[in-house]
């Protein structure tokens, strides 16, 4: 029996809608796990406003139509006080209306994404293009070269990200040799690889996603791109994605995220959450930045801070408090919402793959601005 100060009051209901089944279930399950962990922790510390938290998890199944039905369950049946979830942008687009507009509920989106989501009551706690490019691209130019190729999957995130990345590349004296888009499930990249090799590209700034990315990197490797000193860069690459290729095929790949597992060595708080997570969920689903796990953690903690400040859970008050909420400790360091922007400032790290693990090679000075809305 938990020592509730205010046990008579009903629990606060937290809704999680994420991909528990389908192609990105590994990410969704990790997010759900993180939510369980955080809720457990808050409840163990006496709950929120003296009330316990109750977790409602629904599957979005990587299928927007299933997702909308299940999210309605959260809103209309369970009447949750807040929904956190969605991994892909299209999923966010599908469920934001039922949550925010029709459901009059607060929505937190935890994944790194292309930005430009400025809907009221919708808060984003993952990195934006600015956060992932501003420090990373200059580093790439210095540690790779000036000639960039932007091979990309054909959907909104790469398109938007590339617009921003190109600006930064050109501002720093680099050059985009080609920018090309592929169907999401393309698995043969011989034409692309040929173009990269024959144009003597220095940096492949990749936004091709699985399943294409594995064969793509392999073909690049076999064509001698790495051997000739080329540099791979990919801003969603975390610990999960490392396993797609043999270590040699992605040696030296650089990524820029808000958290890498190696940080546990230098950062006690990261070590603490990482250990707590692994204790509760020893399975396959890693606590990793690319799959929104860190965004989920940060989002829940920021929301907790906001509820504490507001002293109640109705949408208006919490949104008002969340607008400027801060946490002193989170994955990768502190985080704070940028007032009026509904996006989150956080620390960013640049890491390079070495023999199947990451090494941190760069860190931002303080918190990086999301530059959104």
């Amino acid at each position, binding site marked *: 029996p938990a020592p509730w100060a205010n046990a008579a009051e009903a629990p606060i209901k937290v809704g999680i809608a994420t991909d528990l*089944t389908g*192609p*990105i*279930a*590994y990410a969704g*399950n990790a997010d759900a796990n993180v939510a369980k962990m955080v809720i457990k922790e808050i409840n163990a510390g006496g709950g929120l406003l003296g009330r316990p938290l109750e977790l409602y998890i629904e599957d979005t199944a990587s299928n927007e139509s299933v997702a909308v039905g299940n999210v309605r369950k959260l809103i209309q049946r369970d009447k949750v006080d807040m929904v956190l979830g969605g991994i892909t942008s299209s999923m966010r687009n599908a469920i934001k209306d039922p949550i925010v507009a029709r459901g009059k509920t607060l929505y937190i989106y935890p994944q790194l994404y292309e930005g430009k989501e400025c809907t009221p009551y919708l808060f984003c706690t993952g990195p934006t293009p600015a956060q992932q490019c501003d420090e990373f691209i200059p580093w790439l130019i210095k540690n790779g070269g000036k000639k960039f190729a932007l091979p990309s999957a*054909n959907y909104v995130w790469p398109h938007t990200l590339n617009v921003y990345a190109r600006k930064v590349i050109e501002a720093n004296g680099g050059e985009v040799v080609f920018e*090309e*888009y*592929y*169907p999401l*499930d*393309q*698995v*043969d990249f*011989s*034409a*692309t*690889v*040929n173009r990269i090799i*024959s144009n003597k590209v220095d940096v492949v700034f990749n936004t091709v996603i*699985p*399943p294409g990315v*594995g*064969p793509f990197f*392999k*073909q690049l490797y*076999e*064509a*001698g791109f790495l051997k000739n000193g080329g540099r791979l860069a990919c801003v969603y690459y975390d610990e*999960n*994605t490392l*396993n*797609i*290729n*043999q270590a040699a095929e992605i040696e030296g790949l650089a990524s820029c995220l808000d958290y890498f597992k190696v940080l546990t060595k230098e950062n006690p708080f990261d070590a603490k959450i990482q250990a707590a997570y692994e204790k509760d969920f020893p*399975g*396959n*689903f890693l606590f990793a930045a690319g799959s929104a796990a860190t965004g989920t953690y940060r989002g829940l903690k920021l929301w907790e801070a906001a509820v504490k400040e507001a002293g109640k859970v109705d949408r208006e008050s919490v949104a008002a408090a969340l607008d400027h909420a801060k946490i002193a400790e989170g994955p990768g360091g502190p985080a704070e919402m940028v007032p009026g922007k509904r996006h989150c400032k956080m620390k960013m790290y640049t890491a390079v793959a070495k023999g199947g693990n990451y090494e941190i090679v760069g860190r931002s000075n303080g918190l990086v601005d999301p530059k959104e809305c």
Partner: protein
Amino acid sequence: MANAFVAAFEILSFGAIIVLIVLGLGIIASMMGIFNFAQGEFVLLGAYITYLAYAKGLPIWAGMVAAPFVVGALGFVLEALIIRRFYAAPIVAMLGTYALGLIIRESVRGLIGGFYLTVPEPIGGSIDIGAMHISAWRFTIIVITLLVMAGCYLLLSRTNFGLRMRATLENPSLARASGISTPLMYGATFAFGSALAGLAGALIVPVFSLYADLGLRFLIQGFVAVMVGGVGSFIGPVAGAGVIGTLSAALPWVMAPVVADVLVFVLAIVFIKFRPQGLIAGKGV
């Protein structure tokens, strides 16, 4: 020149991969008349078995050798339990095998945690000819594909087994009246088609890495290849797969990949529209 050579090799190698995948699909779809939606999952299983061998520390080639046998055996069992009921109703078969595929796929997804997992190739690295690098494993795949193709052709056209198989699939009741044990032949054919899928999965997993939707990725392409090649024979689908495979690898060299992708399908459909019997019309094996 060198560039053209590399291009030709890459295009050919992808063509070979598609042919490899379609071999089994073709036998089952074209000869048995079952559009097997679980075929992609047989490919997946072949890949998974190879991965298991690797994960358990066995040599990878051992997994690759085991894959066709295990998947073939599974195919034999599934035929006896499930597929057998579908011969009279090809459309119901599509749905039944779809469900079967769903079950296998989701189970494998559970087993591998929904991740993308790498499996190294038994013959790694690249063959270097001057400044050109050619993937050794892709080269191996081309060679194996050619061998398997020739083997299948000889088996079907030159042996009594092949004759029995073709007779059974063509007119089962007459085949029985000619003394052929049709249930056995059906089982064997399906198992053979599955085994080829298993082999395909085993060989391609180092190229594409293991993930639950690995087989599904090629399914539609495979069916289109069967149609382009012509239903009813063994070589039809193989020819179709060669065309579809090389086309999908070649078009991105000359146009935007996104356009190329759709164009391949549109070209295929238009082709079938005006030549419904396919590339190779109901002749031979």
